[in-house]
């Protein structure tokens, strides 16, 4: 018995199709995963089912909900949504009204479907693992995970037949992500609810769903039972997605020399909370008395949940921020952060997480790439040009692209350009801040391969900052686990992940979603 039946759905904007001729059937009781990369049309599909498409969307095709076409009347459609469909969105901060207590927001959902009252709010909060007192909070007074639980409670208010979760965990950190996924699974089991789970993460879909549809560029690539599709993907694209979820642990000997390149020496960074009126406020220790060494040629990974201080630590090492106490030693130069002398800055570089924010849209690629070269004095015009060409060719792009502007490149290409900029001064140490987490799954592997190849080619030393244990296992020689500004565990990836000692490391390992093949 089908709950949602989509036939020949086409959605275009200004004549350009975003979804073309999509047909899907979702049966009652299904846990249906829709997977795709950015621009695949997976979120639009969800909006089409709920009648929430933007007004300028041109829609053709048919959607049946429980055997009946979706009502054309706005009010009737709204009531259908309210009573039979619950939705959970990606970004729980912006999805909640910032000026309203969360209890009131849940209660509003209850009232709209004819239920009433406080007892129901408390019950829903309990069902999603929160307490009754959380109802009094405003959204900004809750953590990301708690906010997403509130969203789920709100979606459950009408006891819907169908829950649509659109990337519900991608704004959350690893441990919370797993807890929210488990919660969704648990609720679906208990309530016998149909689920449409939209994600870019093959593993999350595999862990939660029993059927799957793969979308690409607005078209259905393939669909079927999850075991079938994952074990025997028929299409090349699906094969690529499945392959991208498996990162082989690093092969070969660790490339470690005895020479220490960088030493972090009792580094502490305190942030005073608030500005002028801060009497009686304890400073927040983002990095708390951290010491470690990095050998030349090593690839060291810093892992930890968001807010653990790993990014602050990296910013001090590259000289973007200054330590409150302690020092960093780089081959004989000691510094606290921003006081790193310009002459030594050429030896260090940083690759940023977000490839879209890391280039000034008003400057050509040559101008952006050439910017760090002011740290290398005495280059004449020809040498300057040669450096740019070497850098862009080393990341597998063409020299002709130097004259272009950032908006002409895809996310993966921009990340290559960001790596090229990091290499242009020929540094010995490169800090990589979540180098692939903002990229589509299918290009992540290529960028990581490039990084590994460059490390071998130029004998680079890497410090990788990440929350992705699989990526770390594939790249790193050594791992430091951070929590609340301190290093809590250290070791080689294989040994560390096989037998984690610290509570946090164990939690991170448990939060890891199982391999899709399993």
């Amino acid at each position: 018995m089908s709950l949602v039946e989509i036939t020949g759905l086409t959605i275009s904007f200004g004549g350009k199709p975003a979804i073309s001729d999509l047909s899907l059937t979702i049966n009652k009781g299904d846990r249906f995963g829709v997977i795709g990369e950015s621009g695949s049309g997976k979120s639009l599909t969800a909006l089409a089912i709920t009648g929430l498409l933007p007004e300028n969307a041109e829609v053709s095709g048919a959607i049946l909900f429980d055997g009946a076409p979706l009502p054309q009347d706005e009010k009737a459609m709204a009531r259908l949504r309210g009573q039979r469909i619950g939705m959970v969105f990606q970004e729980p901060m912006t999805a909640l009204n910032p000026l309203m207590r969360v209890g009131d927001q849940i209660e509003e959902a209850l009232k709209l479907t004819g239920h009433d009252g406080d007892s129901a709010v408390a019950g829903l909060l309990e069902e999603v693992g929160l307490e009754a007192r959380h109802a009094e909070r405003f959204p900004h007074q809750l953590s990301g995970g708690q906010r997403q639980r509130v969203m789920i409670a709100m979606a459950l208010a009408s006891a819907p037949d169908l829950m649509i979760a659109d990337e519900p965990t991608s704004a959350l950190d690893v441990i919370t992500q797993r807890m929210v996924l488990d919660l969704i699974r648990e609720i679906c089991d208990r309530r016998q609810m149909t689920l449409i789970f939209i994600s870019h993460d093959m593993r999350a879909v595999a862990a939660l769903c029993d059927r799957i549809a793969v979308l690409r560029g607005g078209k259905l690539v393939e669909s079927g039972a999850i075991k079938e599709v994952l074990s025997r993907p028929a299409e090349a694209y699906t094969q690529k997605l499945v392959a991208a979820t498996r990162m082989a642990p690093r092969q070969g000997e660790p490339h470690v020399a005895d020479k220490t390149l960088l030493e972090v020496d009792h580094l502490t960074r305190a942030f005073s909370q608030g500005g002028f009126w801060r009497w009686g406020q304890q400073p927040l220790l983002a990095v708390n008395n951290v010491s470690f060494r990095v050998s030349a040629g090593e690839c060291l990974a810093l892992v930890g949940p968001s807010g653990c201080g790993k990014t602050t630590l990296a910013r001090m090492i590259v000289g973007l921020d200054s330590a409150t106490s302690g020092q960093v030693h780089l081959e004989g130069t000691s510094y606290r952060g921003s006081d790193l002398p310009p002459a030594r800055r050429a030896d260090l570089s940083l690759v940023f997480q977000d490839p879209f924010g890391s280039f000034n849209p008003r400057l050509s690629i040559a101008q952006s790439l050439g910017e760090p070269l002011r740290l290398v004095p005495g280059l004449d015009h020809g040498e300057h040009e040669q450096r740019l060409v070497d850098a862009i060719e080393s990341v597998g792009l063409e020299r002709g692209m130097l004259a272009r502007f950032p908006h002409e490149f895809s996310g993966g290409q921009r990340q290559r350009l960001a790596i090229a900029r990091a290499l242009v001064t020929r540094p010995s140490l490169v800090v990589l801040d979540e180098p692939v987490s903002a990229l589509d799954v299918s290009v992540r592997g290529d960028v990581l391969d490039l990084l590994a190849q460059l490390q071998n080619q130029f004998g680079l030393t890497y410090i990788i900052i990440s929350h992705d244990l699989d990526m770390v296992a594939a790249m790193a020689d050594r791992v430091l686990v951070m929590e609340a500004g301190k290093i809590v565990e250290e070791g080689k990836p294989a040994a560390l992940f096989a037998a984690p000692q610290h509570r946090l490391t164990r939690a991170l390992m448990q939060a890891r979603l199982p391999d899709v093949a399993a």
Partner: protein
Amino acid sequence: MWGSHPMTLYILRRVFGFLVTLLIAAAVIFLLLDLLPGDPARFILGINATPEAVAALRLQMGLDDPAIVRFSNWLFGMLRGDFGLSQTQKLPVAGLIAERMSVTLPLTLFAMVISVAIGLPLGILAARHRGKLIDTALMVLAQTGVAIPNFWFGMLLTLLFAVTLRWLPPGGFTPWNEDAWASLRGLVLPSLALALPQAAILARVMRTALVDVSTQDFIRTARAKGMTFGEALWRHGVRNALLPVLTILGLQFAFLIAGTIIVENVFYLPGLGRLIFTAISERDLVLVRSATIILVLVVSFTMLVVDLAYGLVDPRLRERRI
């Protein structure tokens, strides 16, 4: 769990900021009007004054004291309600200003109320039906309203309602204690002249703010709960959109006070503006000094009220510490 404490702190911070601004503003005015002219007594009396007359005035104004003493005398005098003596009218400045304020203040408040009562609903209406005919019509109207100088609009209103239709007096003012109804009638056209261009600004700001809010995720959440777009906009959008509108409201009050001074001219109203122009032409420094600090006080006080309203509407702001 976060009861009165953060809000109290928030209010204290804002009030402190308000007092600091006021103190610096007073210092700026003092600097301009007491120190820059060199000898204010000679400035007031003109170049033909005899040295004896200048000396007498200096003594009367206390100009032989050091600047800092004169500044603090002025400040503490104002705290006691003593704004000094007008040089030309030989009357206490406080009384003169209070008398004129009985015209200027009601005029400003009427204009404010009218512009809010017209501007906000029209802005909401336009945002609700954005892209439709009613939105376009309202925004063309607002685009025109924003461009009309309020004093010129006052002339047009006089032409229509006072000269042609003879519904309302073309100008002049009956004191409140003689015939309050007549005073009120005298303020109708001036208030409208001030209010309608401001209402156009408010409608535009309200519409933009609401359209911006309507693209936010929480509006989608509200619709997912079962509301229509209109319901979601009304229950969740308007309050969020009020935040930017509040800022503009504060600025508008300043514009209205300034506008009052100008519009008084059109309708021959005996308000603060007329008092100030006389004072300027007669070089009555004491009067100008006090009148300007009063205007600055009213404007900064409005900003303070807006800030406090912000804190009331937005729970995030109460806890921020800057």
